[in-house]
């Protein structure tokens, strides 16, 4: 498939539900997750997506997130 027509994956983290366990950071082969500098209402320094463009849609983060906080949309 040429680069232009390749499916784009858009990962996002629900900052209210994340509990900052760090599992997504450990398992992402593209290292797209980083802690934010803010805390959510639960008191956790939630995770954010830093370079989502490199996401390959492998879904490892979705499968391991204990708080069902990660979603990956396809475009």
């Amino acid at each position, binding site marked *: 498939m040429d680069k232009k027509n390749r499916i784009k994956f858009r990962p996002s983290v629900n900052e209210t539900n994340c509990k900052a366990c760090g599992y997504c950071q450990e398992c992402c082969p593209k290292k797209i997750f980083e802690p934010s500098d803010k805390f959510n209402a639960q008191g956790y320094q939630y995770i954010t997506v830093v370079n989502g463009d490199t996401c390959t849609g492998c879904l490892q983060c979705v499968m*391991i997130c204990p708080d069902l906080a990660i979603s990956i949309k396809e475009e």
Partner: protein
Amino acid sequence: MSHATGLEYLRKEALPLMWCSGCGNGITLGAMLRAFEELRYKKNEVVVVSGIGCWGKADDYIMTNALHTTHGRALTYATGVKAANPELHVVVLMGDGDGATIGGNHLIHAARRNMDLTAIIVNNFNYGMTGGQFSATTPAASITSTSIAGNPERGFDICGLAEAAGANYVARETVANGAMLKKRIVEALGKKGFSLVEVISPCTTLFGPRNKMKQPIDMIRWMKEKGVPRAKYEQLANAEADGYFVTGKLVDKDYPDFCASYESMRSRINVRAGGK
């Protein structure tokens, strides 16, 4: 191609989940809901029967029918539900305390009867909800709130027990491999007769920190290292002593399930009674 999210079965208004950061219950919940979606289960055809404990709270987040029962007795209620309406998909959620300690005898007999149930036992090696006391699956020498110098007892092999008691399907996976866990739950749900999926799961607040795994990720790394396929396990020199355990599908049989046997006995009686 889009993936199964399982979100149609999730009670979103109840989020965030009640469990601690990194707790494996949420990973197991997600895998199970994705399995429901892959099997295209209708919500009204599923009954989730849960016991008491942290994992037993899972039914709070599920949009199917649910029955929250007493500690250690979930399998007995589930047996009644299935016998009353064999068309339902009955899934039984239990912790290791619930399913293998106080409720261990029911596990034996549900497997022996080969009731068409899918039991998902989340084994976090201790009683989470009540403060981390040792359970029947706590490994020997592990530290818990009731074994501060190490557990003097040996841990139970839940899968070995279910196999010996006659279960049609038995598998063990860890939450470190959520995709494989989902696959095993799909297989277990599709199997007639008693199915058990044992999920090796981190209790990140109570068990991990007391056993040299201070951070949640330490427990994930531990289960990734120690959970190995049977072939590899058999090659290791001191597998059991070194804390390795077998993951994968361990039993896959097609012995007639209880409801099928019961119907065949009933029809024999009916024939004898002249078809009445």
